[in-house]
C-alpha cells in the first residue's frame, strides 16, 4: 500500500499552487464572480497553456493521456483557490462523453479543440424536473427529414453562455426502462432556435437556461447509436464526478485552514478564540469533513484509474461525502468567523457558494446514496 502522491503528482501540485497563487488572489475571485459572465478568458487561456485541458484526453487526440488521479491533484488545488472555469464541463465531462460515445472521426475533429482550449464545450443534462438519473431526461429529440429536432428546455447548465458547442442529452424514444431511448447530440451554440439565459442567484459557477426551439441537429451531430447513449453518458459523468470531488475536498480543506487560522488570531476576552471548546469543535468538524472528502475522493480516483469494477460505488460514496461535507465544513467555519465570515470581501463566502452549488452538481448526497443502495444491492 502507498497513499503518497507520485513525484510527478507532487510537481503538478506545486506548479498548480504557484500558478494560482500568482493568478487568483481572493479579490480576483470576487471580481470574476461578480462579472456578468463569471468567466475570465485570460485565466482560461493560461490554464489551457499549462496543458490542464488536455490531461485526461488520450495522446492520439492531442491530449497528454494522464490519469484521473493526476487531474484530481490539480482539481484539489483549483478547489483550494475557489477557481471557476469551464474546465470540468469542457475538458472532463464533454471530452469523456465524446471519447465514450463518439466515432473516430468525431473524436479526431472535437477532442483536439478541447485539449488545446480552442473550443469550450458545455454539457446539457438537467431539465426543469431536476435530477441526475436517466428518468430525468425528458427533452424530446424527434427525427425529421434525416435530422433530429430538439424542442424543450435545459436548466442549470454550467458555462453554456460562453460555450462554443453544447452536448445535449435528449430522449429519442421510450424504452422498457428509463435508461433506454437516451441519445447524445452535438449542437453548435449558434444553432438556429437555440438561446441561453444566465440564471440568477447565489450560485457558484454561472449556470444557464437553454431553450431549444426546433433546433435541428444533422445526423453527423449524433454521438453513438441512437437511443443507446446512457452507458457512455453515465461513464463520463462518473469520471467528472470523481474529479469534482477533489475540487470540493480542496475547498473544504481551505475553509478548515481559514477556521484554524482565525481561531488562533482572533482574540476575545484576552485569549485566542481557539481555546473555547465550541470553537474547537467547529474547527475539528471542518477538518474531519475535509479529510473525509479528500480520502474518499482519492480512493474513488484510484479505483477509476485501475479499472475496478466497484469504481462507480466509490465515486458515489465520494460524492455523497463531499456533497454534505463541503457544506458542513463551510458552516462550521462560518461559526468560527461570526460576522466577518459573511462579509463578501473576506473570502469565505466564495467557498460557501461553491459548496452549495456543487452539492447538487452531478448528483447530491440523496441521489448518490440511492445509487449506492442499488450498487450494494440493498
Amino acid at each position, binding site marked *: 500500500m502507498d497513499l503518497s502522491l507520485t513525484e510527478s503528482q507532487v510537481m503538478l501540485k506545486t506548479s498548480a499552487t504557484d500558478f494560482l497563487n500568482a493568478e487568483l488572489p481572493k479579490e480576483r475571485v470576487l471580481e470574476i464572480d461578480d462579472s456578468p459572465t463569471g468567466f475570465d478568458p485570460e485565466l482560461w487561456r493560461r490554464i489551457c497553456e499549462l496543458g490542464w485541458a488536455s490531461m485526461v484526453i488520450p495522446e492520439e487526440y492531442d491530449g497528454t493521456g494522464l490519469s484521473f488521479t493526476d487531474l484530481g491533484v490539480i482539481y484539489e488545488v483549483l478547489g483550494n483557490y475557489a477557481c471557476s472555469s469551464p474546465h470540468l464541463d469542457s475538458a472532463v465531462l464533454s471530452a469523456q462523453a465524446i471519447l465514450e460515445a463518439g466515432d473516430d472521426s468525431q473524436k479526431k475533429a472535437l477532442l483536439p479543440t478541447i485539449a488545446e482550449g480552442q473550443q469550450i464545450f458545455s454539457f446539457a443534462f*438537467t431539465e*426543469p*424536473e*431536476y*435530477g441526475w438519473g436517466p*428518468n*430525468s431526461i425528458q427533452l424530446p429529440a424527434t427525427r425529421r427529414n434525416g435530422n433530429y429536432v430538439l424542442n424543450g428546455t435545459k*436548466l*442549470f447548465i454550467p458555462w453554456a453562455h460562453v460555450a462554443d458547442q453544447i452536448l445535449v442529452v435528449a430522449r429519442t424514444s421510450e424504452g422498457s426502462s428509463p435508461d433506454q431511448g437516451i441519445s447524445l447530440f452535438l449542437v453548435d451554440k449558434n444553432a438556429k432556435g437555440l438561446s441561453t439565459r444566465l*440564471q*440568477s*442567484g*447565489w*450560485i457558484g459557477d454561472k*449556470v444557464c*437556461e437553454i431553450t431549444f426551439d426546433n433546433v435541428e441537429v444533422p445526423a453527423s451531430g449524433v454521438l453513438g447509436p441512437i437511443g443507446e447513449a446512457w452507458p457512455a453518458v453515465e461513464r463520463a459523468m462518473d469520471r467528472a464526478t470523481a474529479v469534482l470531488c477533489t475540487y470540493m475536498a480542496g475547498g473544504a480543506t481551505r475553509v478548515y485552514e481559514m477556521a484554524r487560522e482565525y481561531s488562533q488570531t482572533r*482574540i*476575545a*476576552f*484576552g485569549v485566542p478564540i481557539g481555546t*473555547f471548546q*465550541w*470553537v474547537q469543535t*467547529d474547527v475539528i468538524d471542518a477538518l474531519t469533513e475535509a479529510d473525509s472528502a479528500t480520502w474518499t475522493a482519492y480512493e474513488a480516483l484510484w479505483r477509476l484509474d485501475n479499472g475496478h469494477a466497484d469504481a462507480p460505488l466509490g465515486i458515489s460514496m465520494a460524492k455523497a461525502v463531499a456533497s454534505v461535507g463541503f*457544506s458542513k465544513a463551510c*458552516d462550521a467555519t*462560518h*461559526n*468560527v*468567523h*461570526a*460576522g466577518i*465570515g*459573511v*462579509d*463578501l*470581501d473576506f473570502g469565505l*463566502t466564495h467557498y*460557501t457558494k461553491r459548496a*452549495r*452549488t456543487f*452539492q*447538487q452538481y452531478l448528483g*447530491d*448526497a*440523496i441521489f448518490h446514496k*440511492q445509487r449506492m443502495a442499488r450498487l450494494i444491492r440493498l
Partner: protein
Amino acid sequence: MDFEHHYTKEQRQFRQEVIAWLDANLSPEMQHTGEPRDLDRATWERHMSFRRKLGEKGWLAPTGPLEWGGGDLSPDHALVLREELGSRGLQWSLEDGSASLRAALQQRGTPEQKSEYLSTISRGQVTIWRLSREPGAELDAANLGVRAHRDGDDHILNGAELFAGQGFGPDYLWTLALTGPDAPSHQATATFLVPAGLKGISIQTSNSLLPGEAHRVTFDNVVVPPRCLLGEEGEGWLLMQDTPADVEAMYPPAQDQELGDLFQYASETARDGVTLSEDPVLQQLLVDAYIASHLTRLLRTRNAWMAANGRQLTYHRAQAALLEKRAALRLSRLVRDVMGMYALLDHQDPRAPAQGRLEVQQRRSLARQNPTGGPEVQAREFAKRLGMDLRKGERAPPPGGVSPAR
C-alpha cells in the same frame, strides 16, 4: 393547560379594525415586496411613510405607553398586529430594533431625552441603527471599537464599529463606547444616541451576504453633547443588553413562512411522477423540519408566556435562541436537499420558487447565525445559566423555569 390563544371579543374586534385599516392604507403592490434590503429608494420611502402611519396609531410600539407614542395594548393585541402584517409580508415593519432603545430611554432617559426621542422613535419618524451585538453575549471590552472620553460636558468619540440597520441611512446611531479601560469591563462603558449627521461620522455599508444590513461606522473626534448620553457612565452595557419586557412577552407568529414555502414546493413539484413530499427520504426530512420549527415556536411561546406572567427567565432565552439558530441552518440544508438548484435562485430569476424567498433563507441562515459571535455565544450563556461555569465549591442556583411536571 391551554396552548391556544383565546382572543377576547374586544381583541377579535381589534383584529377586524386592523384588517380594515390595512385594507384602506396598504395597497396590494406594497405587500410581499420582499426583503427590505432589496427595496429601491422610492419603495423604501413609501414603506417608511406607511410605518409612520402605523406609528401615528401607536402600532409600532403597541404595548408601549400612550404618552410616549405607544398603543398601550396587550401582548395579545401586539400578536394580532404582527400576524396581520406578517400575512401581508410586512412583519419587518415592526422590527427595527428600537424596542431596546425605547426601554432604555423609559428606564434611564432624562425628561428632556424622553420628550425629544421617545415619541419620534415610537412613531417611526426616525431611523435608528444600533451597534451590532449578539443578545446574551458577554462584554469583551478589549474588542469594543469605540472609545469615549470627556471634554468638559461633552464626550469625544473615536473608533469604528459594525452597526445593524436597514434603509439608506440613519437619523441616529445608538452606540456603546468604552470610557475607562482600567475599570472592570461592564463598568467602563457608556451608551450614546448620536445624531448621524455629526461632524466626524462616516458610514460604509459592508459588502455582505445580506446586503444593506451591516454598516461600518467610523467616529473621528466626534463631539457628542450631554443630551446624547443615556443613563450614566458605567451603565452602557447593561442598558444595551436589557431585553424590554414587551419584547420578551412577544408571542411568535403561528406561521413559519419559509417552512410553508418549502412544503408548498414539495407538495406541488413532482419528479418521476411522484411529488417530492411523497418521497420517503424527503418526507422524513420535511417532518424533521416541521418538528424543529414547531419546537422553536413552542419554546418562544413558553418564554413569552413566562414574561407576560411575571415568571423569571433564566436559561430560557439562550435555549430558544440556540435552538432557533440551529434549526435555521438545518432548514437551509433541507431546502437544498428538497429543491436542488432551485434553492439557489433569487427573486430576479423567473424560475425562482416562492419569489426567491428560500434563496434569501440560504444566506440569512448564515448571516443571522453569527452576527457578532457564533452559536457558541448562546450555548455559553445557556451553560452559564445552568451554573456550569462555577468553580469547585460553588453551588449552582436552580435553573428555574416552567415544566408541565411542576
